[in-house]
């Protein structure tokens, strides 16, 4: 039988300053019909480039410079445009990363289905409608017929993604490319969406390329995986084997950098630095992973390591694969920190009601973002707040720091009612916030030194510049950046570095409570590990408590000692992390926990129903 998709030494290059730099290098894989191939890697690894090469939608300046991509034996790049148009969307379908923006907002679901099916030759309007209803029903969407008349904005993200999956499979494609199909969705919707993709794939006998950054998830869903780093496939093989016995140091480090939800709490492996950018890649000789690799030897820098077979069908591009299993994270050293006895923050009966759609003279509809919330945080304690999107987590954060005023309830900080605190400077010095999106949280016009010491120019204070520079130096050292970052602009920093600056600014006046809203969410696993270790170290050094908002339970379990579970504006469960995660009481807590894939690739993932 012909292969559904075959990559033969595929190289995709970008033109940078006149030189060609490969973003994907000599990538080869075989995808048989009816199988799922996982492309795994952090951002910038080049995994999305493969999907884009198939669709022939490479970004400007990028092109396939050598090798070939064969769909059922036909070269995708070389085929006539007319032939490609006939294939794309029909025989080759795509499931996008951002479902909300991928549907046309001005057309109903029915109209989009109709248009799609008509383009690929479904005869009558009646037949197209029946097909649409059948596909939507198969996608487990309730009231499929009624859904046809609805607009995308009337659906949740998960529903949009189901519609897109139904749409993708409606033409009986022979290849489906799914690029991070769950990343933009709520964690609790991940298992059902993945189950749906797997079901559809099985029913239609489709070959699937599944692009993801999550190793554990790939191991559960895929037959084969290819791990990519800086454009190269560093390891490939049967999904479970690659995860159970990783042969390449990068795969192993990635695994160790990810905290576990179920296993014994252990230290995270911290890879130094970050993945090289295309520009840096140009000047790198030898193994591209060498700057971050714990096993690096002089020989690694001499030439690119060959692709070595470590078992049947399991290959790795490394000269020291035998030593990989020995890589281990340092022992956890922050266990000594104990939360204090005294409650630092007490929140009693907190409520926030927003009025939406109101004019200047009132009116509008009341939305209870937080219905009732009571909790406390002790001195030096890290408390997590988890819950699905829209449950009110960010609203609590805004109420605590004073961006919003509560409708009812009290916030008592160190024995003082915060609502009554008129002294803004005092409040600023005791409670600070780290924002989620470091891009938006840093003024692009201020230099790093001016950002991290911004609190010193607030109100009537006018610290002189020497003072501020001295403080900058200390703060940069605290967050693990060198002093020459002081003069940089935020635009010249990577995502992880920006988040460090963000943390440094919040810590400038040594607050006693930090509110952190999803501060590691958008970051790569290796950068996330760096930041989690940083936060643990800073707590030991500087003594502060933190409300850590996250949707990632593994991260929460690693960093925090107590957890609050929020659902629909209420705190439905709270307690020590171990107690809540090992013995969840509320159904929503259980749903959150079961949506995390197990660490062991062999272990069954109950939420992913066969």
């Amino acid at each position: 039988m012909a292969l559904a998709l075959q990559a033969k030494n595929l190289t995709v290059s970008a033109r940078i300053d006149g030189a060609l730099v490969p973003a994907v290098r000599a990538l080869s894989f075989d995808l048989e019909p009816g199988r799922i191939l996982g492309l795994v890697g952090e951002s910038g690894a080049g995994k999305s480039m493969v999907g884009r090469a198939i669709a022939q939608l490479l970004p400007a300046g990028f092109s396939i410079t050598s090798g070939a991509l064969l769909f059922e034996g036909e070269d995708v790049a070389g085929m006539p445009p007319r032939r490609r148009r006939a294939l794309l969307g029909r025989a080759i379908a795509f499931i996008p990363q951002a479902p909300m923006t991928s549907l046309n907002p001005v057309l109903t679901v029915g109209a989009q289905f109709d248009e799609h099916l008509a383009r690929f030759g479904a005869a009558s309007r009646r037949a197209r409608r029946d097909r649409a209803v059948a596909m939507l029903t198969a996608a487990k969407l309730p009231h499929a017929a009624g859904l046809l008349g609805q607009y995308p904005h009337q659906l949740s993200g998960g529903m949009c993604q189901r519609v897109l999956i139904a749409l993708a499979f409606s033409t009986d494609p022979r290849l489906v490319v799914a690029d991070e199909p769950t990343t933009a969705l709520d964690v609790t919707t991940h298992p059902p969406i993945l189950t749906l993709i797997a079901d559809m794939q099985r029913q239609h006998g489709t070959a699937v390329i599944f692009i993801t950054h999550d190793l554990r998830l790939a191991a559960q869903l895929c037959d084969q995986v290819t791990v990519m780093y800086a454009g190269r496939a560093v390891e490939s093989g049967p999904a479970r084997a690659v995860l159970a016995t990783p042969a390449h140091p990068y795969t192993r480090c990635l695994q160790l950098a990810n905290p576990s939800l179920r296993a014994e709490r252990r230290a995270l492996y911290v890879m130094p630095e970050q993945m090289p950018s295309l520009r840096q890649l140009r000047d790198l000789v030898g193994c591209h992973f060498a700057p971050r690799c714990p096993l690096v030897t002089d020989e690694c820098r001499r030439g690119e390591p060959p692709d070595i077979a470590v078992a049947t069908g399991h290959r790795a591009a490394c000269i020291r694969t035998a030593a990989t299993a020995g890589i281990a994270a340092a022992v956890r050293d922050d266990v000594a920190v104990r939360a204090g006895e005294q409650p630092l923050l007490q929140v009693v009966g907190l409520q926030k009601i927003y009025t939406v759609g109101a004019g200047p003279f009132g009116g509008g509809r009341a939305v209870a973002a937080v219905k009732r919330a009571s909790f406390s945080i002790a001195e030096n304690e890290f408390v997590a707040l988890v819950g699905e999107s829209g449950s009110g987590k960010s609203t609590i954060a805004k109420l605590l720091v004073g961006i919003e005023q509560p409708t009812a309830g009290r916030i008592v900080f160190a024995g003082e009612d915060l609502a009554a605190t008129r002294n803004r400077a005092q409040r600023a010095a005791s409670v600070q916030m780290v924002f989620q999106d470091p891009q938006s949280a840093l003024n692009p016009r201020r230099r790093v030194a001016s950002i991290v010491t911004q609190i010193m120019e607030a109100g009537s204070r006018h610290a002189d510049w020497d003072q501020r520079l001295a403080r900058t130096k200390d703060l940069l050292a605290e967050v693990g950046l060198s002093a020459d970052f002081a003069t940089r602009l935020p635009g010249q920093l990577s995502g992880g570095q920006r988040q460090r600056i963000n943390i440094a600014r919040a810590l400038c006046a040594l607050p006693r409570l930090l509110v952190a809203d999803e501060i590691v969410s958008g970051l790569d696993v290796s950068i996330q590990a760096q930041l989690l270790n940083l936060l643990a170290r800073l707590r030991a050094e500087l003594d502060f408590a933190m409300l850590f908002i996250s949707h990632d339970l593994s991260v929460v379990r690693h960093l925090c000692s107590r957890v609050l579970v929020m659902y629909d504006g209420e705190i439905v469960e709270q307690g020590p992390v171990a107690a809540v995660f090992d013995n969840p009481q509320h159904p929503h807590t259980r749903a959150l926990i079961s949506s995390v894939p197990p660490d062991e690739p062999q272990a069954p993932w109950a939420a992913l129903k066969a």
Partner: protein
Amino acid sequence: MADALARSLRSPRVLIALGMLLCIGFCAVFAGLIAPHDPGDQNLLSILTPPAWVDGGDRNYLLGTDSLGRDVLSRLIYGARTAMLVALFASFGAMVIGTVLAHIAGYFGGAVDWLIGRAVDVWMSFPPVILSLILMVGLGTGLSKVILAIVLVDWTRFCRVLRSEVLIVTRHDYVAAARLLGFTHRQTIVREVFPATAPLLITLVSLEMAIAVIVEAILSFVGLGVGADQPAWGQMIADARQYVYQSPWNLLLPILAIFITVTAFNLLGDGLRRTLDVRLAETGR
């Protein structure tokens, strides 16, 4: 911002525009020194003489004379002074009012925003030229009256465009962060929001100067401008209209002057818009 301004000085559009404006500005400032005649001096013995290079031209009057025998070149030079004064002060005044209101509306939102927004709407529902004519009838003629009328009409232009920019900037987390760090509202607006809207503001000002030049010309043309004693390009056009067959130059020259000035301001605005757009320039490592 300083970097961006330096960068814009390398843009050919900006350089050409600045060159043109420098010439016009030089004429405006040193009108008394370079004008060969007093712009009001009448020589009834040589009226409607064509420019010197045309048959019947007079070396004494390089660009000819008008129907009262006044020197066209000198009147053009003094007219530049009028045009530049109006452009500068009117756009500056409109900018100050529009910018302050836009920042208040966009930053605070809610009822304040609503109120300012409706005021702008009502104001803008009048055609601008009609509104300024009505104002001039009420205010009377004179340089300061023209400036005042343009300010009163055109602040809405700044207010509307800037308000949406302020809204976008205010939504950034760094503005909320500034408040959390203890910044007062005024500090937040001045130090965090305004620097982000300033590039757009500069662009708008240079475009507004072009508009002010045109409006001043229109007002002077209909006789509701700076007043008869002060030379203005619009007035020169109005005068020359009646003798357009005898002396087309008198009509063409002030039109050309307006055209060049307006083009220069527009070119400057366009060049600045391209180079100051920080959103385009500051990404990428």
